[in-house]
């Protein structure tokens, strides 16, 4: 007996819809669960006082500082490299074997798991260059990790700038570099900022690559060569060593909110960029 196509369709759509609903429910549950358990422990004092007794008491202030500084260092290093690469690929060369190799390198780098970055950063920056566990080692490692994100988003943003803009600039006698600097980059800026935000979001949430390169000191860093502990690393240590579930939940809540806010800002930026383009 053959099932009528209409009925098959109803069955199929029901299954697909249930699967989608399940996905959304799981993801919303995760955020809801962490926030409901964590938010009661979050207040100004928690955010602004330093951790005491390994994190059993006190707040998360020094880890908050680490979470701001480390992605900042990473982005300061990766931004010129990433945007420079994107400008070269889109404005200064045609598709050749070389550009294909460069793009392939970027794609591969994007697929490397963070533990490999941690392993590399540890042996190269921490041990071989004798920098030790510090802000700079961690920042350099993260910079390599987020480089593909910045290259891709910047390139997309640059390619979205209409050709006519460049032609007008050239016809006014501007050189290629002047055109890039005064016409292309300013118009691609929102897209580039989106990439930077995504890179910051990823850096904030990263643990494996950070713990082996930036260390986990709870002291306030005073130079690039001091070890820092980010919120993710702090949360991992609190949770894994069973130091304090209550503080762990509160830290997780702050962590999730920070990452979501940064990513939301990135999407908002991208949306504005796209809607301005299509005008």
């Amino acid at each position, binding site marked *: 007996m053959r099932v009528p196509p209409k009925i098959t369709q109803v069955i*199929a759509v029901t299954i697909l819809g249930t*699967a989608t609903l399940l996905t959304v429910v799981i993801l919303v549950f995760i955020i809801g669960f962490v926030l409901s358990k964590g938010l009661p422990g979050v207040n100004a004092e928690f955010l602004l006082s330093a951790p005491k007794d390994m994190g059993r008491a006190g707040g998360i202030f020094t880890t908050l500082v680490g979470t701001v500084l480390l992605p900042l260092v990473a982005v300061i290093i990766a931004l010129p*490299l990433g945007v420079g690469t994107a400008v070269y690929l889109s404005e200064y060369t045609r598709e050749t074997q070389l550009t294909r190799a*460069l793009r392939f390198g970027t794609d*591969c780098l994007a697929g490397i798991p963070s533990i490999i970055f941690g*392993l590399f950063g540890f042996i190269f920056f921490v041990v071989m260059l004798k920098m030790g566990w510090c802000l700079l080692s961690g920042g350099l490692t993260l910079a390599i990790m987020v480089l593909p994100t910045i290259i891709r988003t910047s390139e997309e943003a640059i390619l979205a700038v209409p050709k006519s803009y460049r032609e007008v600039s050239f016809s006014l006698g501007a050189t290629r570099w002047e055109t890039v600097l005064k016409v292309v980059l300013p118009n691609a800026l929102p897209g580039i900022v989106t990439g930077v935000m995504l890179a910051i979001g990823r850096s*904030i949430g990263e643990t494996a690559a950070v713990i082996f390169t930036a260390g986990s000191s709870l002291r306030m860093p005073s130079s690039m060569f001091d070890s820092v502990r980010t919120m993710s690393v702090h949360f991992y240590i609190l949770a894994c060593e069973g130091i304090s579930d209550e503080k762990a939940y509160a830290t997780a809540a702050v962590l999730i909110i920070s990452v979501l806010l940064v990513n939301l800002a990135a999407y908002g930026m991208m949306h504005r960029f796209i809607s301005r383009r299509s005008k």
Partner: protein
Amino acid sequence: MRINGEKIVKYSLMLVAFSALASLLLIAVFILKEGVPFMFKVGLRDFLLSSDWNPQAGKFGIYPMIVASLYVTFGAMLIGAPLGVAGAIFLTEFVPTPVMRVIKPTIELLAGIPSVVFGFLGVMVLAPMIRSTMGGPGLSVLAAAVILGIMVLPTVISISTDAIAAVPNSYREGALALGATRWQSVHMVIIKAARSGIIASIILAMGRALGETMAVIMVAGNTVKIPQALTDPVRTLTANIALEMANATGLAREALFATGVVLFVVIMILNAIALSAIKSRVRKK
């Protein structure tokens, strides 16, 4: 003079453009340089196929970790791939566009939830559930597979949705004009047309699951043993690296880099397959 300035800019930009490729090569060289000599020192067979892991005694068999990584990754795919692809099909074909415009970014936003948070939820919610219903310690192959399956959902959904949305509308119209129902047009025409993109999303997700570290350390239990049941604790390749890194020196540290080499090679192969699947789709169009 001006021409010269332009040349300098061009060549410095070219130099900068090598940063990503150079970093990749630097990473590859360092991991290989530290890891490969060790493999030959210990012997490939004793490294890859022995179940005896005891760095203090000079035993470095990572076979249980390889098996564990495979189980956990495939388990994650069994959960993540069908759910993710189903979600992608539903969102692109059976939901009005405005609704999809809300749900898809929401799901992508969730890709940003740090892996340690997933791991923590695995410990606090999932592991106790497994312990009370199925026995065992709770921290297990099953827990790791479920958590990873959830973690890869945004990857699968996001890339599959793009692939399905890229199928030309004329395909849908053609199928519907021939009298097919929506579902028939989806499973007979659209899924076939978007196949390579869907496969790419699953392979990329596989690479992510295989490479995930912190969440797995928290929920897999980390015992070096070939699992006999879904509820047995295991230690994956990534967990092995992260757990022993802190206090490993000499030969033991080299062993971790050798573990890294295995991971690196497998993930590079997976990525190459996924990338070529995506590229062939682009070329076909």
